[in-house]
Structures are given as C-alpha cells and as structure tokens.
C-alpha cells in the first residue's frame, strides 16, 4: 500500500480517521502493518501490501 492511498481511506465502520502502524515497508510502500480507527478502535490489517477494509468479523 502506497502512503498516498491512506489519504483517501477512512474507517468503513464509522468513517473515522485511520492511524497507520508500519511493521515492514520498502522504498515504495507499506508491506505489513495495520490501520487503526481513532474513533471506534477497529483495526484493519495490511498484509503483503494490501489493506483489508472489510468490517471486522465479516469473512
């Protein structure tokens, strides 16, 4: 996930702002990490460079 994608994302549950935590990144993008909603506390994983914004608990 490139950092500029974060500008257009918000929490799918409550539309709150997302705080990025980076576990692993390279020159271009974030590979592993998470997006945490400041408002409702929901957490969305970033795995292999792809943010997963499905609401928690839905498969």
């Amino acid at each position: 996930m490139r950092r500029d994608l974060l500008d257009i994302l918000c929490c799918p549950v409550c539309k709150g702002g997302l705080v990025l935590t980076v576990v692993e990144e390279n020159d271009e993008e974030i590979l592993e990490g998470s997006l945490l909603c400041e408002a409702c506390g929901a957490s969305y994983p970033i795995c292999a460079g792809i943010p997963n914004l499905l609401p928690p608990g839905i498969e």
Partner: protein
Amino acid sequence: MNLRHLEMRLERLAGFARPSARLEQYQTPPAVAARLLFHAYMQGAIEGRAVCDLGCGTGILACGAALLGASSVVGIDIDPGAVAAARKNADAVDAQIGFLVGDVRDEGFDWSSLRCDTVVMNPPFGAQKAHADRPFIDRSLQLASEVYGIFNGGSSPFVAAYTEGRAAVEEVIACSFPMRRTFAHHRKDRADIAVEVIHYRRI
C-alpha cells in the same frame, strides 16, 4: 499501444488459483477486457483519467487501464486471495495500482473518497445469486460519470431500466468468448458465453 498489443499483454496475467463459484469468479477473458479498455481509451476515458476497477478480481481491467496511461488506478475486491493475485499481476506489468480489500455493498465505507473519472468492471452476472450485479451498478454511478462494464449477453434492457433517471446507456458492444470448465456445475468442457460491454453515463 494497439488493441492486439494490449490483449497480448493481458493474456500473460495470472487468473484465479482457486475460483469461487459463489462469488462468480472467472478469469475475465483478455480479449473482452482489451476490447472494453481500448474502446474506453479511444473515447478519452482512460488516458490521464482516474480509474477504479470495482470487483477487480485478479486485476486484469485495472492493469490494462494502467498500461493505457490512466493517471491513477484503484482496484477493490472482497476476496483477499484475488487481490493478492492482482497485486502480483500489477507488479508483473510494472503498473502502479492501489489495491484494497473491501465490499462494494458496504454502506459505511466512505465511497466519496474513491470518486474517479471512469469505472471499469466485470461484475458478477447474478447467475449464482440473483441481482448480484446491482450493488456494482449503484456503486459505479456513485463513483464516476463514465462506466464501462461487462455484462451477460442481453443485459442491456435491464441495465437501461435499472439505471433509468440516473444514467443513459451510451453503447452496447456484443462479444463472446469461450469459457473453459471452471466449476463442478459446468457440464461442458468449454462453452461459448455471450457477453456485452455496456457503456453508461451518469445523467
């Protein structure tokens, strides 16, 4: 890049490793994807435009839009496995695409953040789940004023009726492609599937 050249590039992309019948996952045929994209490109809807691929699957439309010079491309799909494959495909053609795992039906999501010029999509036809294509049509019109989608052959009257008052069907291009046996419920080794590329514009 001409149509044939685009098709050849798209033919090299990988399809679904384990397609899901429930999600109506099948590899968008490169010939149909190239046809849709090149047509949109000739109409000025791709080059220099912000493009979104709704239900991107393994990302063939998103990759093609990037190859044709879209200014930005976002691909979104509900299936994490498909999006992972799409990302590999984008890397293989050196395309800069933002991929997301998300649900087009999700009303809570801030879709206005994904507004763009053109939506390209190959939504589920609703063969397994009736009306599965409707949320895609609704969402596409929320995101963009120009939409190019691949639908079942003969869908254009439905699409015209369903979008009445919201969009005008500009063009319908009939195509067919051979589908190889993908799911257990498929009885033939290969069947010719008639599809339509439908271009509609928000009014």
